[in-house]
């Protein structure tokens, strides 16, 4: 380790500097605010208190959090079910075509999201485009409205979040070594089996990344459920925004944000630990061990995963 590594040093310094200044510092400030009291003339007053957390131990807040988690999880699942096969199809298209197909996924999202949401209203509303098409096809006899309900909310969320699922998935699937699949099939595995034992484990990091990039932002998202869903229930993003802007109770809003963040970071750590345990177990029993992917830096690296996967596929075939 005596070699000088200017690139390494510079990278670490730059990254540390940026995240330290713009992420760590503001968030430490936020954490501090959660222990302060709401101010009369200023937004906060410098009095220490645990009260903000105590106030959040309230069934109302738990219900808000639960509803938000459910909505975020469900829309993540919808995005994954649509995004995975799509990303797979793009990643296995002709090599020269792939970047263009990918670009085509993103271009619609450069139109302002409010404008796109309004376009969705035109489609979904009573006597809107969807309703007219269904009537023309004779599937319904009266105008129908798809607005202000769960269907509209999920359509809107999926529409907004889909690229955040597709792009990481694509990046992960694209490097999949097709020879492994061929090997598995040569050894007699069915397509489904090869997918289950080779493709899926190898693309798991992409799945995890995509799910994170959809799930985490969708938790704080409230605009689409409000506009398309009719704002009949309150979501955590809305709650936090209300505390900061409408009720002007910054400490409470900061505490709610901290709890949400802590909850999710705990979930991520839990995932790390479990995947590390899997990795360790695999290394011990390398014989039977099939490598499940999704390893983090802490999970160590397993060189033999591909071969293992193929072997396992064969073993079961």
């Amino acid at each position, binding site marked *: 380790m005596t070699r000088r590594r200017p690139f390494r040093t510079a990278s670490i310094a730059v990254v540390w500097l940026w995240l330290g200044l713009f992420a760590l510092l503001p968030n430490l400030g936020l954490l501090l605010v959660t222990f302060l009291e709401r101010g009369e003339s200023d937004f906060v007053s410098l009095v220490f208190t645990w009260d903000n957390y105590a106030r959040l131990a309230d069934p109302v807040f738990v219900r808000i959090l639960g509803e938000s988690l459910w909505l975020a999880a469900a829309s993540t699942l919808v995005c994954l079910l649509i995004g995975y096969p799509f990303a797979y199809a793009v990643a296995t298209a002709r090599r020269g075509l792939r970047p263009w197909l990918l670009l085509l996924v993103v271009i619609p999202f450069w139109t302002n999201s409010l404008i796109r949401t*309004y376009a969705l209203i035109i489609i979904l509303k009573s006597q809107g485009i969807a309703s007219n098409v269904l009537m023309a096809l004779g599937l319904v006899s009266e105008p129908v409205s798809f607005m202000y309900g769960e269907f509209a909310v999920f359509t809107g969320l999926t529409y907004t979040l889909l690229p955040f699922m597709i792009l990481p998935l694509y990046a992960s699937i694209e*490097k999949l070594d097709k020879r492994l699949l061929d090997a598995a099939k040569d050894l007699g595995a069915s397509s489904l089996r090869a997918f289950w034992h080779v493709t899926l484990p190898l693309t798991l990091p992409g799945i995890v990344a995509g799910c994170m990039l959809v799930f985490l932002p969708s938790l704080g998202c409230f605009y689409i459920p409000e506009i398309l869903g009719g704002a009949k229930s309150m979501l955590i993003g809305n709650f936090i925004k209300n505390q900061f802007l409408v009720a002007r109770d910054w400490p409470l809003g900061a505490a709610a944000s901290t709890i949400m963040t802590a909850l999710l970071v705990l979930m991520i750590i839990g995932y790390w630990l479990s995947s590390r345990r899997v990795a360790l177990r695999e290394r011990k029993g390398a014989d039977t061990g099939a490598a499940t992917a999704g390893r983090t830096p802490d999970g160590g690296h397993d060189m033999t995963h591909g071969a293992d996967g193929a072997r396992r596929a064969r073993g079961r075939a």
Partner: protein
Amino acid sequence: MTLRLRTLRTWLVWLVYAFLYVPILVVIVYSFNDARYTTEWKGFTLKWYSALAANGPLVDAALNSLSVATLAATIATVLGTLAAICIRRYRFPGRKVLHGCIYVLTVSPDIVMGISLLIFFIAMGVQLGFWTLLAAHVTLALPFVTVTVLARLAEFDEQLIEAARDLGASEWRAFRHVLLPLAAPAVAAGWLLSFTLSMDDVLVSFFVTGPTFEVLPLRVYSMVRLGVKPDINALSAVMFTLTIVLVLLAQTLTRTRRK
């Protein structure tokens, strides 16, 4: 792959593209709609395009958005990729804290990020405007790049780099010739995500921009109270068409170059 699976796949791809593009087509069609307020079709007109041409501030805001988004996406991609490589490959003090920061940033509600960055900028005495907006957008987009690149490098073979290093390659050259080519699709995906995020961000931008620098999403969202005017549809249609033309042009160029 069997034939049935393949047709199924083609169908799926077309369906998803249709899902993504139908609302955009609706926006384009309605940019020709001769109605000020409603979503009913009232006949063809070009008046929203002339209204757009006369609406200098709106066009300015769009251009501002484009320049911030391009710059922010590029910086975020560089920093985010470096962050992913640091987290993935190097052992250094505070590595886990950095990794945690990445996730905290992704979860942070926009309002929280916007207000805390504004307070930070005020404390630093920085003038609000282009630079603060840029810094905020880079911070907003960075974790998306890092998470994407990390996923790509998840099963990366460390021995490749070690081999390159043993052969005398500097860390930079190893990065340039081994790591970067490997991560390239994720880096590109990260840039696209960053650009998208920056083009669409409202709440963070609201707090960190100053009295002389306006971006498009702010202008659009603040129309909600008074009703969105159709010249926005015209603007969206123009921007969309330009993008498509650029993409087609680039594609033809790369194809001829390859020939």
